[in-house]
């Protein structure tokens, strides 16, 4: 039997068995498209987090108070009051790899303006805080060093705060010069930040009020301690050097002996990124696991349909052998049939999978990522199942004597 006849025989059989054709293709399509869509969405979210983190500045370094064990008692990070303005000054004066540094203190409470109010937190920093965190002003100005030394009651606010407290304002520049009250203390708005949208964790990055750290310490917290210190390395490559340098300076400043652990923790954005990435790759893995289940379900579907149809078609196999088909011809026919079905289903599945991931990622506002490994893997799995279970029962049927196959009920 030549290849043209073989293709004709296989093609005729595909057209004749429409239900089988549709069900098999459906099985392949479901298996492949769900794997592609899920893995792509997982990778989309991973990429969107990466983009978010880099937009906050890849050379940003955060210094936090560390969990401290003293005499076996965990003091907890809120009780460990290790960071002071002296630390900020040491870093500012002595660290070669650090270009900017700012303390960070924050207080939570109610913000009021006229009849409008909202819950929020007031963050205090130095003049460099905005630049370190890659925040820029849409209108107005930042506070000055003088504001810091005078504990000025001024603040810079984000877009969400503007919307909440000044819903009637058309032009944000009208907000400049107005007062808002935080815990009853009036603060004059001197600047409004550009909108940054939600971050990867779904937090609104525009819901911020930033004031001089001295104002927050003296007027709201009543302490000299800092929650965090933000730094900026001179460039991304020097981040690690900056971390080492900061650690040495702080240990010295805190008079820690060699046996003592750090009472602070230095984190870079790169670390944040890898932490986030490990979280999202777990998510991707989870999605892939769910998708594999649908792949298996699709595969079992294909297997069943193929198995049942070959059993149904044993009489046909017997007849074909009775009129001169060799076992090899029968096998090849079924192999070609299932290969065509798997291939067609595979292509439709890939297209559908890509469409689904495109729709999903744009609905969730994430970048569209094509996962070639998911495409390849799911395609191979489905095609292999389809072809194997098309071939295997056909092989068993083709090994029967023609007369046994013909009499098959």
């Amino acid at each position, binding site marked *: *039997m030549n290849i043209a006849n073989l293709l004709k025989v296989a093609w005729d059989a595909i057209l*004749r068995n429409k239900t089988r054709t549709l069900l098999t293709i459906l099985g392949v399509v479901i298996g492949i498209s769900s794997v592609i869509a899920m893995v792509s969405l997982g990778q989309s979210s991973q990429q969107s987090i990466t983009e978010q983190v880099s937009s906050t500045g890849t050379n940003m370094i955060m210094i936090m108070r560390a969990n401290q064990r003293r005499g076996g008692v965990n003091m907890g990070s809120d009780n460990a009051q290790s960071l002071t303005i002296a630390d900020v000054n040491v870093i500012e004066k002595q660290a070669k790899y650090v270009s900017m540094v700012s303390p960070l203190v924050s207080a939570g409470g109610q913000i009021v303006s006229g009849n409008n109010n909202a819950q929020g937190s007031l963050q205090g920093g130095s003049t460099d805080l905005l630049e370190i965190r890659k925040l820029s002003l849409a209108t107005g100005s930042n506070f000055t060093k003088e504001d810091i030394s005078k504990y000025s009651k001024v603040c810079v606010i984000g877009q969400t705060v503007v919307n909440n407290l000044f819903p009637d304002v058309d032009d944000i520049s009208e907000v400049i010069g107005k007062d808002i009250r935080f815990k009853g203390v009036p603060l004059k708005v001197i600047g409004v930040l550009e909108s940054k949208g939600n971050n990867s964790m779904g937090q609104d990055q525009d819901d911020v009020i930033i004031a001089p750290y001295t104002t927050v310490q003296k007027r709201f917290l009543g302490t000299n301690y800092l929650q965090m210190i933000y730094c900026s390395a001179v460039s991304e490559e020097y981040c690690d050097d900056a971390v080492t340098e900061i650690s040495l300076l702080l240990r010295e400043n805190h008079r820690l002996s060699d046996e003592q652990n750090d009472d602070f923790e230095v984190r870079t954005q790169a670390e944040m990124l890898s932490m986030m990435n490990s979280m999202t790759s777990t998510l991707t893995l989870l999605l892939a696991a769910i998708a594999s289940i649908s792949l298996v379900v699709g595969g079992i579907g294909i297997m069943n349909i193929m198995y049942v149809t070959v059993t149904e078609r044993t009489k046909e196999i017997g007849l074909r052998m*009775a009129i001169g088909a060799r076992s090899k011809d029968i096998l090849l026919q079924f192999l070609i049939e299932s290969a065509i079905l798997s291939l067609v289903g595979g292509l439709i599945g890939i297209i559908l999978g890509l469409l689904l991931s495109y729709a999903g990622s744009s609905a969730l506002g994430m970048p569209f990522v094509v996962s070639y490994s998911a495409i390849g893997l799911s395609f191979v799995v489905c095609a292999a199942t389809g072809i194997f279970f098309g071939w295997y029962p056909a092989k068993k049927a083709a090994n029967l004597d*023609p*007369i046994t196959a*013909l009499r098959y009920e």
Partner: protein
Amino acid sequence: MGENIKQNQSNQQQPTAKSIIRIEDLKRDFVVGNEVVHALRGVTFDIKEGEFVAIMGTSGSGKSTMLNILGCLDKPTSGHYYIDGVDASQCSKDELSFIRNRKIGFVFQSYNLLPRTTSIEQVELPLLYNSSINAKERRERAEHALELVGMANRANHTPNQMSGGQQQRIAIARAIVNDPVILLADEATGNLDTRTSYEIMSLFQKLNDQGVTIGFVTHEPDIALFTKRQVMLRDGRIMKDLLVDTQSAQAALDALPASDDY
């Protein structure tokens, strides 16, 4: 009916006719569980070119078993089977496929047509397994075979659109499309009424007149009268082998009462 029964002397009658089928001491045992069923217990005979042989016998006498071996659908347990000079009992599976494809046409009691497939495609099917025939020749030969069985106007019909007799005609067209050296039929009229059976027998007679050699299994004596020779089996052995005073199936058809024509 003037039955003219005499010992088969076709050897003497047609000294020039070639023997196309020859079986020698053919045995076929089936093992079912611990028991052995001797379906054929040593059968010897031959069929010459142009013959129309009815293989007769009661149910279970081994008719189908023998015909399946003649059609290379089954292999004998022992003995020899020569078809067109080839010892089929020594052939491999693929060689048997080749013999079935080129030398044999088989007609089944239950037609065995492919569902949802048009007549012309059914008839083309055997030629698809013959690489030396191209698409054009395949179509021409299939059309010719359909014409021979009087089904040219049903070329695009599928089995569920045709009566049993019509389906059997399609099956006969499929069996003769490869110009077989022998046409084998197992109870080809078994599922049909009298009139349709006679019509089918008339078709077989016409094909035989055109030179097709036919082996025909039936247990109905009136159908066997339309053949030229009867081989009677009982319990896996040949009981009788005799020439028949052949009746014309067309004449029998004409003689059927008109009331049959409802």
